[in-house]
């Protein structure tokens, strides 16, 4: 460098500080709005907060109450049923469509966007469309009756025992195309030469997929699982728009539970404790995943 030593020294010093300065506003926002807020919510879950935050320490009372509430029990059970079916069905449909589309299908460029467009919609729009489509009075059932199939019966959305499956149906409709896109990208990355070699050894198509192709999609399966489970735990809008948590409490999930206890039932302490449980569930899934993803790269 041609500049005098002192000047260069100042410059390098400045150069090491500028990047950190540029990063710091984002970091500060994250620290306050994410991690500070998490701590605050955790703290509130141990207090007697009702309409407004209050700071009387009550220990684990809120958690104790929470786990004894039948309402919470229903919400957790619904989430388990919903998440399990949602993840499994999305993965199966996504994998199937991806494999089918990968067979040099004519019109792939038309089909792919059709499978994927629901992902661009708001859950509120999806909920509005399906709510009406499934309404026995004017939707599918009504139409089938008009077409002469008088015995056709499909009233799940009004039925306490089956309403949660309509949430699964609408959610699968919205996200399975996205899973398809992930698997398709995985399939396109597989080395063809290896498949040809296996084929020469007499492997059938089924064996090719079963033994070679699907095992290689492991990273795509993992990503799909992580993304879908995270979407499932956060799902709020769809339930609000499709069933409003009903009929009765039949489709209540932790996200709707938290909202109603905090903002309409004025039980903020219990609401906060339910949000902490939700966070812990996500942490259990995300942290190992992020850790392995970030470690691999460095």
């Amino acid at each position, binding site marked *: 460098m041609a500049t005098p030593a002192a000047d260069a020294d100042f410059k390098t010093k400045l150069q090491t500080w500028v990047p*950190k300065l*540029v990063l710091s*506003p984002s970091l500060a*926002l*994250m620290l306050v*709005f*994410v*991690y*500070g*807020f*998490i701590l*605050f919510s955790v703290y509130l879950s141990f207090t007697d907060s009702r309409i407004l*935050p209050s700071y009387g320490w009550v220990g684990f009372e809120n958690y104790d109450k929470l786990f004894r509430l039948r309402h919470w029990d229903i919400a957790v059970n619904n989430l388990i049923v919903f998440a399990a079916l949602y993840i499994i069905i999305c993965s199966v449909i996504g994998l*199937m469509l991806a494999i*089918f589309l990968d*067979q*040099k*299908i004519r019109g792939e460029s038309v089909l792919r*966007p*059709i*499978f994927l*467009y*629901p992902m*661009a*919609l*708001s*859950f*509120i729009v999806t909920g*509005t*469309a399906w*709510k*009406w*489509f499934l309404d026995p009075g*004017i*939707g599918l059932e009504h*139409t089938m009756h008009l*077409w002469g199939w008088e015995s056709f019966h499909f009233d799940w959305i009004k039925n306490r025992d089956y309403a949660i499956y309509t949430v699964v149906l609408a959610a699968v*409709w919205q996200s399975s*195309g*996205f899973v398809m*896109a*992930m698997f398709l990208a995985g399939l*396109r990355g597989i080395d063809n030469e290896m*498949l*040809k070699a296996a084929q020469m050894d007499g492997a059938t198509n089924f064996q090719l997929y079963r033994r070679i192709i699907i095992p290689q999609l492991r990273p795509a399966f993992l990503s799909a699982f*992580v993304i879908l489970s995270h979407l499932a*735990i*956060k799902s*709020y*809008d769809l339930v609000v*728009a499709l069933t409003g948590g009903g009929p009765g409490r039949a489709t209540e999930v*932790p*996200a709707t539970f938290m909202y109603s206890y*905090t*903002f309409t039932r004025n039980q903020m302490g219990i609401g906060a404790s*339910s*949000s902490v449980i*939700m*966070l812990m569930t996500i942490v259990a899934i995300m942290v190992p995943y992020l850790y392995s993803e*970030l470690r691999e790269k460095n």
Partner: protein
Amino acid sequence: MSAGSTDTAVRTGRITRTALYLVLLLFALFYLLPFAIMVINSVKPLSEITGGNMMALPQDWTFEPWVKAWATAQIGVDPTGLKPYFWNSIKMVVPAVAISTILGALNGYVLTKWRFKYDTLIFGFMLFACFIPFQIVLIPMARILGLAGLAGSTPGLVLVHVVYGLGFTTLYFKNYYQVFPTELVRAAQIDGAGFFRIFWRLLLPSSGPIIVVSVIWQFTNIWNDFLFGASFADFDSQPMTVALNNLVQSSTGVKEYNVHFAGAILAALPTLLVYIVAGRYFVRGLMAGSVKG
């Protein structure tokens, strides 16, 4: 697509192929049907919906439901239609997308080209923030927005969306800049170029695709958000999704399904348009959010 996939190893017979096409077409129908039916029924008079067949094309075409949904439908207390809420959404989305993308680009630049101790850890913390259930921040956020005088305002919502979108935009730019040759940056440094000059002259000109990805992702997410809008907005700032939900769920009077459908399509239109125009990037954004590296 790689060159290898032009010649697939898996071969299929004619019967299998027919079955493949059949299944694919059935699924295409499944994905298209609910939305298509909504479109058809949004141009029917109400009597044809409640008395008729949802699959039938309209006998009397009418665009009145659209006009009504946009300009005169009763939402909340006022018969304003969705129009003011549409502008609320625009006023919220544009600055939120711009700010989070700019910050994301700078963060990605720092985290790849100006690495320092613990930068991966910091990135991990930012990335984790993408995945928290937002219920955990609702109560403190309501409190802070209130204290800052931002409760129920558009700037408040912009702040919220910037904060919780930062993780994703940083991720996009970090992954993108990772493969940008660091030697070029070092060479420019030796030539005396500073931090911002390198970013402006060297990295930004080649960032077109990833800016599009980030903008589309943020636009779709923020436009479609319901939880924050429902929690932190009032009439002057309520976004489209919240207004649509109010319109559809309102219990007073006759349920005007055709108006609801027109409203739902209006709410979906901006993201659908973006998707039709730039679908390729939309897919890339989704992928980058899941499969990293």
